[in-house]
């Protein structure tokens, strides 16, 4: 038996993470040993995924793997199977690399905390859970992995239990997360009762043609379960609480990895298991939820006054983009949605790490207390700005490339389907983008620019390890933004093609999937955008302008002569008022905007009451609505 056959790699990439978690419990007392084990586990996982890139992404092979060398007996696939197609690998690759970066970051970031042994154990459990989820070919196995990752995420949310609100956030997450997991379990049970199998490929073969009231109920339950994991509306308050309270390296995982696993689940559910996305009503459901998530969360983010909580709401807002694009059921839509999912992981990871760097140095993430850190932490500022520009879609960063594709996809869908509603979707997407920009202007003004409060005068730049991790993500943001064609051709389009080729997925497991029609896949878009040549032009223009500017009499006088300000002309202009601390930032920065919407903002503030019963009620209502909706339209 050849252990280095790439067919084994999916198992390895999951097992090394769990093995690492186990080993850290056993012998992770020593810091060096612990870090080496964690590093090795994460690096192995990434390497396994990278090695699968060529056969799965480029050559289109679908790897099916039976644990314990079982096989299909009597026409029923019972046993634990892994199945890796381009979609699974896309998420696997994304997740393992983000886990790797977040791990690198936490070596330094968590170095002042105690109980690090437990931290790394949980961290690797979470990573292993998500990897298992996206590579699994068995629906019950998926459920187990969801439970593992939920527990790990809850425990990590409460890890710094001295932090304001951490315990509370963890409890709320646990309650609503458990309701979601229970929904998934009940859904799986109903599916089993109907089809007598738990294998994903076989279910995809058996379910779509034989929808009855029970399977429709299962669809609603599974949908609600996965949307709990993706924190879609109405589960977004949990994300905000959990991200805000967890350590930054865990927030990266929750926002970059957990939400993606929910999206992955929804894609598998709608495109593979039930194959219902051809229906206009299903497209309407996903796009509607996506748009509501997008818009509600971006406005919630504008009203926040905590750095990480704000980022958390943005996270869900961006997931709304992904869901909207995925819900269009066009090749371009899915490709752009996956592209945005990837970009979201990269830039949101970067932003959370930057928030963590601020927290690490100043001890707070309250936007009202911070200010002027750009002089003290210049590199973090630049990295943060890259992330902020990416998420708000400033060209040529990656957020722009994917959002640009999403606009095209939604508008094309509007024209093709002749449905004026999709036009509104394009407008909502564009307006959300500008509101995102606004709230990041707010963050940069209140944290990195503006006036430096007295107590932060001794703040230093964060250590090299943390900057390195942030730099990796920033580089990825720039590269994936500059070469959108490469990313779409080699990464997202194979994955999107896999979504439309369910027959292959079923056949790879050993069933006859030829009856399932393959969709037509065309990735044509109407727009043109060539970032590299644009950037070239911009650089030449910039160079010319710089030369002209320097050619003039350009006396740049330094303010600091001998460390002290010598002349009052270098001080800020206060119009004759006394120079007191006058940082403008935080809550009321966009007063002119909020004033017009104060009814809406007050309503939203009251709705997000923070009482766990209310959130559970939202979950129950959402479940009821989903059940009624699916019973009617499916």
């Amino acid at each position, binding site marked *: 038996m050849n252990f280095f056959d790439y067919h084994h790699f999916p198992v390895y990439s999951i097992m090394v993470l769990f093995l690492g978690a186990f080993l850290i419990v056993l012998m992770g007392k020593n810091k060096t040993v612990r870090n080496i084990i964690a590093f090795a586990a994460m690096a192995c996982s990434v390497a396994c995924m990278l090695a699968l890139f060529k056969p799965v992404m480029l050559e289109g092979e679908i790897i099916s793997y039976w644990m314990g060398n079982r096989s299909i007996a009597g026409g029923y696939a019972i046993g634990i199977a892994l199945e890796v197609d381009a979609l699974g690998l896309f998420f696997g690759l994304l997740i393992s690399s983000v886990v790797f970066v977040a791990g690198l970051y936490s070596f330094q970031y968590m170095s002042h905390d105690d109980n690090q042994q437990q931290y790394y154990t949980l961290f690797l459990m979470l990573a292993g859970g998500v990897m298992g989820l996206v590579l699994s070919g068995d629906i019950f196995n998926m459920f187990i992995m969801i439970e593992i990752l939920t527990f790990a995420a809850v425990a990590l949310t409460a890890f710094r239990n001295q932090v304001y609100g951490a315990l509370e956030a963890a409890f709320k997450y646990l309650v609503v997360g458990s309701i979601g997991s229970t929904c998934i379990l009940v859904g799986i049970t109903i599916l089993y009762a109907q089809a007598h199998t738990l294998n994903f490929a076989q279910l995809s073969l058996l379910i779509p043609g034989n929808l009855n009231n029970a399977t429709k109920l299962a669809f609603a339950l599974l949908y609600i379960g996965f949307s709990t994991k993706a924190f879609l509306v109405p589960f977004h308050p949990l994300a905000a609480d959990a991200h805000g309270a967890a350590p930054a390296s865990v927030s990266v995982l929750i926002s970059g990895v957990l939400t993606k696993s929910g999206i992955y689940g929804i894609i598998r559910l709608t495109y593979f298991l039930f194959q219902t996305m051809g229906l206009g009503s299903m497209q309407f459901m996903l796009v509607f939820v996506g748009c509501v998530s997008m818009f509600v969360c971006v406005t919630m983010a504008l009203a926040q006054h905590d750095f990480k909580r704000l980022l958390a709401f943005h996270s869900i807002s961006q997931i709304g983009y992904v869901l909207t694009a995925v819900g269009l059921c066009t090749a371009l839509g899915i490709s752009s949605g996956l592209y945005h999912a990837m970009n979201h992981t990269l830039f949101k990871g970067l932003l959370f790490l930057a928030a963590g760097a601020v927290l690490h140095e100043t001890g707070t993430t309250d936007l009202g207390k911070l200010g002027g850190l750009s*002089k003290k932490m210049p590199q973090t500022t630049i990295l943060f700005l890259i992330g902020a520009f990416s998420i708000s879609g*400033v060209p040529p960063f990656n957020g722009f490339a994917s959002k640009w594709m999403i606009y095209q996809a939604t508008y094309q869908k509007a024209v093709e389907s002749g449905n004026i509603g999709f036009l509104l979707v394009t407008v909502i997407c564009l307006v959300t983008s500008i509101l995102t920009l606004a709230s990041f202007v*707010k963050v940069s003004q209140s944290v990195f620019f503006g006036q430096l409060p007295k107590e932060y005068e001794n703040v230093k730049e964060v250590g090299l390890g943390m900057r390195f991790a942030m730099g990796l993500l920033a580089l990825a943001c720039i590269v994936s933004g500059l070469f959108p064609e490469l990313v779409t051709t080699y990464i997202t389009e194979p994955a999107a093609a896999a979504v439309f080729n369910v027959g292959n997925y079923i056949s790879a497991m050993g069933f006859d999937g030829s009856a399932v029609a393959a969709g037509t896949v065309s990735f044509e878009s109407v727009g043109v955008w060539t970032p590299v040549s644009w950037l070239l032009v*911009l650089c030449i223009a910039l160079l010319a302008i710089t030369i002209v500017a320097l050619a003039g009499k350009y006396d740049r006088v330094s*303010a600091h002569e001998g460390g002290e300000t010598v002349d009052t002309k270098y*001080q800020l202009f206060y119009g004759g008022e006394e120079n007191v601390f006058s940082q403008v930032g935080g809550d009321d920065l966009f007063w002119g*905007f909020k004033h*017009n919407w104060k009814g809406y903002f007050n309503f939203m503030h009251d709705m997000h009451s923070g009482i766990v019963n209310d959130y559970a009620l939202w979950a129950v209502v959402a479940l009821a609505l989903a059940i009624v909706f699916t019973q009617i339209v499916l």
Partner: protein
Amino acid sequence: MITTILLDALQYLGYILIFPGFLFCFLIGMLLCGIDRKLVARMQKRVGPPILQPFYDFFKLMGKETIIPAQANRTVFLVAPLFGLAALVVIQMFIPIFSFSAFSGMADIIVILYLLLIPALSAIMGAAATGSPYAGVGLSREMVVIISCELPLVMVLLAVAKTVGDALGVGLCFSLSDIAAYQAVNGSLITKLSMIPAALAFMMVIPGETGNHPFDAAEAETELCEGMLAEYSGAPLGVYKLSHAIKMLTLTSLFVALFLGGLGTGIVILDAIIMVVICVVLTAVCISLVHAITARLKIEQIFKYYWTVVSGLALISLVLAWYGL
């Protein structure tokens, strides 16, 4: 082979630096600015500065000392204005002058929409880097103005895309050069019923995007001491003034490209002159006239105005375009 590449490179360099790039933008932008000032003065029964005054101001500022506030972030403070200017010059090159476009196939209208953010964004970053409270208030208002203008602008652009796409039979058309080509054959878009509200909405967006009266709450000399520019002096201030002037040209010429594309003659120089003349007229109507007859609006009034009146117009246009009128 090498000579053709070199010639191509030289040609593109010429595009970037001279026409329709930097030099063209500089001259025409400043000219528009001068005409605007003169017109406003005449409308207010003042004599007003000479039309070349913006040029004098600019060169004077370039020669002045640049004072960097002690607590500012130097890099961002100095680099931000340059980025804004460069982005504007690049946008200008993407906007076709009737049938002539320097760089076709590099950007579409959605990209233009986002590129228009960069000058404002760089101004915001530069202002934020100073740490001045005046700049803080100024940038917050600037951001709200951007949000206000975005919604109508988006709807106008989508309406244009749908109209041209319908006419070309492809459903959608985002490419500016295709829009220009379509208009060259079939006449200006403004002759279509559905485009009239869109053109009106776009004309209302122009003063907001350039930050002119009555939508200049972000600069508000009387209350905020120029807001975002409060701490700027010398060359960077000159660059900002130049950017402001070029922005007038950019938006007016975008209007020409979107709605009046059928007026071209096919001869580049003549086309450029026609475009400049239309730009001057548009500046006179949208910027100078409005400046002379209105008082500054409060920031929440600006927001309300754009999201109700102007967006309403744009929405009418979008719906009309949807039903192919």
